[in-house]
């Protein structure tokens, strides 16, 4: 079932929306974002609301069109359709919104069966469903055959992951899947994701919560207003944040028993002090890229 993840590559991906009363103006939600995820890697995409992170998630899933730039999985363009969704799936933020309230929760499995495994026998399908439900650490007796409003948010989210596992899943986009869950169930869902990653699944984990991102991910991409400000190996990015925005984010995280810190101001813009450039980002150390700090006296604007 999990035969190794897909390589996700974004190269100067941009998304603009028409705005204004008669479609005259336009807003740029995602601005020339580039990053990649190696097969089986868990990348966390961190940003506040309005940063464009959900738009990127939707573009990876083919639910929104890319305006310009290239977004490929294993070298192939994203092409929404049954074949594509056999290997790439998504789980979203609001578990109660993902289930059609007039039907039972199991219907999400039935939908998958109808589209992808129509000739599997009832007996066989029931076995597969039960195995997938146990894989996500749920008790089939407690969750099958119920309506969405009878289950908790954590159970619903895990059922959605179980649904994704019923396909030949190679890549999962998890968009804020824990933000509406309680603290105790949150960790269970995260541990589940980590376990799946260890079995070879590639994951794009979108969140605004830094502590969750660092808990799981090897690579981190920090997004602000549609642009990447810093990315690279998680420990390097948060151990040594070079961009003022990353520092502010880190300082604003409410930690138990630690007072809020103020971010240390950035002395010099790492992007402009360095040498070799990778487009908008400069590689300060292996696998640690940072964009222009946008300091007030920076007369030079980034490319």
């Amino acid at each position: 079932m999990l035969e190794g993840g897909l390589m996700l590559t974004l190269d100067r991906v941009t998304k603009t929306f028409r705005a204004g009363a008669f479609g005259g103006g336009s807003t740029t939600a995602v601005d020339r974002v580039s990053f990649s995820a190696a097969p089986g890697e868990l990348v966390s995409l961190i940003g506040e609301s309005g940063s464009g992170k959900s738009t990127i998630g939707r573009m990876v899933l083919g639910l929104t069109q890319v305006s310009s730039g290239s977004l490929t999985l294993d070298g192939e363009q994203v092409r929404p359709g049954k074949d594509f969704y056999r290997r790439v799936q998504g789980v979203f933020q609001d578990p109660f919104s993902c289930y059609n309230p007039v039907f039972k929760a199991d219907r999400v499995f039935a939908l998958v069966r109808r589209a992808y495994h129509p000739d599997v026998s009832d007996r066989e399908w029931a076995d597969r469903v039960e195995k997938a439900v146990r894989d996500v650490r749920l008790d089939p007796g407690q969750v099958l055959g119920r309506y969405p409003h009878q289950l908790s948010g954590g159970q619903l989210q895990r059922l959605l992951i179980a649904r994704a596992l019923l396909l030949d899943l190679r890549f999962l986009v998890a968009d804020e899947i824990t933000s509406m869950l309680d603290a105790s169930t949150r960790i269970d869902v995260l541990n589940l994701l980590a376990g799946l990653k260890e079995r070879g699944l590639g994951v794009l984990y979108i969140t605004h919560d830094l502590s969750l991102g660092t808990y799981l991910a090897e690579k981190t991409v920090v997004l602000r207003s549609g642009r990447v400000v810093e990315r690279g190996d998680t420990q390097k990015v948060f151990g040594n944040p070079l961009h003022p925005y990353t520092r502010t984010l880190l300082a604003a995280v409410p930690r138990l028993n630690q007072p809020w810190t103020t971010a240390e101001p950035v002395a010099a813009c790492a992007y402009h002090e360095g040498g070799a450039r990778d487009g908008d980002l400069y590689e300060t150390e292996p696998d640690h890229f940072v964009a222009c700090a946008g300091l007030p006296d920076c007369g030079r604007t980034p490319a």
Partner: protein
Amino acid sequence: MSTLPDPAPEAPSAETPVAKPGRESLHYAVRNPKLIIGVSLVAILLAVGVVGPMLLGNGNPNEYVGPQASAPDGTYWMGTTTFGQDVYAQFVHGLRATFLVGVVGGAIAAVIAMVVGFLAGYRGGITDEILNMLTNVVLVIPALAVLLIINAYMGVRSVAVQGLFIGLTSWPWAARAIRAQTFSLRTREFVDLARLSGSGTWRIVFREIAPNMSSYLFMMFILLFGGSILIASSLDFIGLGPTEGVSLGLMLQSAQQWSALQLGMWWWFVPPGAGITAIVGALYVANVGLDEVFNPKLRES
């Protein structure tokens, strides 16, 4: 975060007993006085319209059978017209015709409204713009003028054809309403999930979106049904009705034409008038009751 569940009572655990959404609606439905009264009244009249003609032997209600212009008595329960036609026979046949035009007109309008509304709401973009233009054009066309012209050229023969034309002109408001609802449901994440499961447009519309609007669609059909009856009666009254058969509106028209009011022949126009009022009024009252059943916030707890 606009679709969050009601904050209280707090989220139930898995051991809460099962209560299907439909069963809850049924529980409230049988306790809602408006709904019960409305539905009962319509059901009674429908029964009269279906069974009445059969009991009379399905004869021609427009035959001259009795003394002219006589008041209700033992033989002729609703009296006779100026020509000696049995008003009761006309009434029960008229009920049947009225219900027929309501069903035909309402069904045709509902189907067109759903197709146009769902497509425009779900697809958006250029499809939406074209369908909107179409809706606006049909909305603005004066149905009366069109029907006048059609009548002049073709002569509306039967009740069913009248229902067809009414259906073709009364769908725009319903299409608008369905489009608006579809717009808001389309952004819900279970629609995304259905797309991620490989479902196509119409499958999503009918299996995901429509069931969430089922109460609304039901009420909409009731309104289209009632509206169709009203329009048909109005058309009949001004002389644009079908040329064969009888309907409640046609009864009113001939009663007016032959001065029933001035001559004091109340039994000629009161039954059809009351009949139309009762059907349409009962439908609207039932609709209000239905709204209370489906919308928990309107219930007096």
